[in-house]
Every structure is written in C-alpha cells, then in structure tokens.
C-alpha cells in the first residue's frame, strides 16, 4: 500500500515536471550559475568561492551571531516577562507586542534607519574606524566577514536579533511559567535569593522544556535572515538576487539558493534532534 502511494506521488511529480517544461519552453543552463558558486582563476588554476558561496557564508555568520544575540535578548526579556516587577514586565511586554504586531519587513526598514544613522555614529562606528589592524586577520574574517562590510553586517545582525529575540522571549516566558509553583516555594523556603532561584532552580528546568520550540525558532531565524537582504546586507538572498539579475538564469539561481537554505536548516534540525534526545537520556 505504501509503495503504491509512493509510486502515485512520484508519477504525479514527473508528470508535473514534464508539463511545466512543456509550457515554459525554458532552456536550462546550470553552468553559468554554477560559475557563481565557485570560480576558477585561469592564471593560477586555484578555485575560489564566488558570490553565491560568499553569500552562504554571510548567512551562516548572520544565523550564528543572530542566534547568540537573540538568545541573550530572549533570556533577559523572558525573565522580565515572568518577573513580579511591574516596570520590567511593561518594558518586555511593549517590546514583544511591538515586534509581533509589525511585519518583519516594516520593522527592519524602520529599525535599520535607527541603527545605521543613530546608534552607530553614537558609538563612533563607521567604515574607517573599523579598518584597524586587529580586524584584518583570518579569524576575524571567518567570524564577522570582511572588515569593510562590518557596519553593514552588524546593522543587519542587530535588526535580525531584535526581531527574533521577541519570539524567543515568549518561548522563554512560557518555559519559566511551566515550572511548577512548588519549585519556587521550595527554593524560597531554603532561603535562596531571587537571582539564585532563577539561576539554580527555574532556568535549568525551563531550558529543558523550551529546547524543542527554540529549535524551531532558530530555523525560522535562518529563513528570516533573507529579509535583511532588503537593507542591502550581502547575504545569500541578496547575492542570489544579484546573480539572477545579471545572468537572467532566474530558475537555476533560485533553485540553487533554495537548496542551500534547505541544507543549512535541515542540518540544524537534525543536530537539534540529536541534542534533544541526548538531553532526555542524561536525565531520567
């Protein structure tokens, strides 16, 4: 029965592909686009990563730092959301509601303006101050990309982290509130301070509960990172757009870009699945 169903689906897919090909009369030419993934220097014979692959690395950097930053924001704001202090609760509530009720694109346009024209000049960050010796080495490039594009990268990163942080805040809040009331009471009864209760008793238990939704949010973050291409952050989607426009090989380009996104996200999902089952095994 399973095989029959599988066969039917396969047949439908092949038929669809055939029809699409028939209707579109499109000449597939992968070689031109492939040249934008890796490029061969004709003189030396070395292979270089070309802009699509560079875009992929940039997306990976965005995803990594975005995750770290969004987690920090989410952890702090999440703790505020579940705090008895009214001011903290209001601040975190306003943050979450603002971001959840504005489309990501709109938020990023507005916030980008704030970051790039207000925040960076305020802390004296511009393309010249970034070009100091300690930024020009392999490690720095691997972590943050080319120094010349650092302000560009950082503004994209902050926008993304602020945006995703709001969702992580809600996940963290739900995790904290899922810890039974008795745990708070027992911790208070042995005289722990508020800070110690959070760190030693509540958060360790909350983290175990929020791991699955957090994994989903990280994958969403990677996909959402394509939005920052709109503010000219040179990540995968931005580069894909460039390639598609200059070569006019629209389908080939976007299919390759799609495959790249899929590869990153699926890898993340598998890794998180492993982590989760490990965490479950180590504790009962």
């Amino acid at each position, binding site marked *: 029965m399973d095989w029959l169903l599988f066969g039917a689906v396969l047949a439908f897919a092949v038929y669809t592909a055939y029809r699409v090909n028939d209707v579109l009369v499109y000449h597939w030419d992968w070689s031109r686009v492939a040249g934008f993934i890796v490029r061969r220097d004709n003189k030396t014979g070395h292979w270089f990563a070309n802009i699509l692959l560079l875009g992929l690395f940039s997306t990976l950097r965005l995803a990594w730092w975005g995750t770290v930053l969004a987690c920090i924001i989410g952890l702090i704001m999440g703790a505020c959301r579940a705090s008895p202090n009214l001011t903290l609760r209001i601040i975190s509530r306003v943050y979450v509601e603002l971001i959840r009720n504005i489309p990501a694109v709109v938020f990023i346009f507005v916030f980008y303006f704030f970051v790039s024209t207000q925040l960076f000049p305020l802390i004296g960050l511009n393309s010249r101050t970034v070009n100091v010796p300690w930024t020009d080495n392999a490690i720095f490039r691997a972590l943050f990309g080319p120094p010349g594009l650092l302000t560009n990268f950082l503004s994209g990163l902050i926008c993304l982290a602020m945006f995703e942080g709001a969702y992580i805040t809600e996940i963290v809040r739900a995790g904290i509130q899922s810890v039974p009331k008795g745990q708070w*009471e027992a911790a208070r*009864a*042995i*005289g*722990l301070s508020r800070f110690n209760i959070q760190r030693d*008793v509540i958060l360790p*238990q909350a983290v*175990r509960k929020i791991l699955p939704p957090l994994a989903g949010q990280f994958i969403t973050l990677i996909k959402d990172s394509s939005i920052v291409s709109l503010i000219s952050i040179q990540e995968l989607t931005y580069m894909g757009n460039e390639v598609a426009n200059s070569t006019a090989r629209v389908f080939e380009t976007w299919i390759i870009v799609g495959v790249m996104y899929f590869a990153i996200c699926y890898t993340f999902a598998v890794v998180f699945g492993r982590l989760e089952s490990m965490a479950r095994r180590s504790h*009962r």
Partner: protein
Amino acid sequence: MSDDNETQGPILSMEGVGKWYGNFCALHDVNLMVELGEKVVVCGPSGSGKSTMIRCINRLEEHQAGTIRVAGHTLSANTKRIERVRRDVGMVFQQFNLFPHMTVLQNLMLGPVRNRGVSRAEAKSLAMHYLERVHIADQAAKYPPQLSGGQQQRVAIARALCMQPKLMLFDEPTSALDPEMISGVLGVMEELALAGMTMICVTHEMAFARRVADRMIFMDRGEIIESAPPAKFFSAPESERAQLFLSQILSH
C-alpha cells in the same frame, strides 16, 4: 537590626494575624506562641487556614494584619531579613517539591551553599549526615524522580534539616503518599521530635499527633478554635466544631 533578640522568648509568636484573599478571610486574629522544643500539631477541616497559617511563618504568604516574630525577627517586606528568617525555618511540603534536575545530594547542598555560605565540602558532609538520619544515604547520587514518594519526602525533610533550622514546618507531609509509605516518613518525624526539634505540623495523622504532640491546635474558618494538650483534646474537646471534626475523622 534592632529587634534581634534570639535567645529569649518564644521561637515563634503570632499576634492578631489576619489575612484576606479579596473578600475571603483566610486568617482571622490568629494568636500562637511556640516555645523552643515544643511540638505543635495543627488540625482542622480542609480550607480552615492551617496551611495558610504555617506558610505565613516563613512568608511564603504575606499576612496583612498583626505581627509575626520568628526567632527574634519581626517579619516584614525586608528581603534580607526574610532570607535570614528562612535560614532558621525549615519547611516540608505536601508535594515534596524536590528539584528534579539535581541529584539528591545537590538538592541538599543548594541551601547551605547559597544562603549560609558554607563551603561545598562542608555542605556535602552535612548533607550526608542528614541523609543518614533519614535512612537513605545510599540514594545520594540518584535524581528525585527515580525515588519512591516516601523516599522523596524523606529527602525533602533532610533538605530542610541541612539549613540547621530552629523550627520545622510540616504542611501535610504524608497526604500525597501511598499508604505503605506513610509510616516511614512519620517514623523519621518522630525521631526528629525525640531529638528535640521544634515542630509545627499540619496533619490528619491523629495517631501520630497523640504520640508526638505537646499541644493540639484546632482551626476552622481561619481561626484557632481550640488549643489543648492532646490527652485533653482527644478525650474532651471543648468546642462543638472540634467534637464534630474529631467524630468524623476518627470514625473510619
């Protein structure tokens, strides 16, 4: 602290204590003195304010009227003083409330290390000492969910004892246990009483109360109705409500 006066007077004094949840009066004019070494058993129908009263003593609940003094400290909103008072007051809950992500040993060491600033090595030997006293030293490396209910409750008692409290509060410690587990926990509590620990115990175990209590407190609708030695309380309760309660609880 001007009102530090730890050597004289009762370990606990509650004077005119009142508490409301909205319009509902949870405690009304509660007056209770407990001397060092005294064992007090609190009983009464459910919803009579027993738990609320003992939870006010270590300020898991805030009282709204009257004064509570514990080991010479008057309870107020002062966080530091509350943490200080909780050092002197151990509490055992109906639902054990052990920390499931820590081993038994870590559960016991957390309070002394964090609140009393004891070194880890010292806290560990303290923890092992009290685990032996509750007869489960061999379970030290396990996680609470791996233990039976009775074992978990004994760990909870040891965790409270590790703070070396002057006063122990028990909030229906055997109500969530399977019947065959109850005697083990009550046994540990009796040993504790014999060793001279001051105890306030909310329980429905009347046989235990008869053996251990110096004084019975009967509560109903947020008030202390009767306070008497167990011999007198069980044979000749004064109030009608206590008579009714005892006839219901002792008949089966």
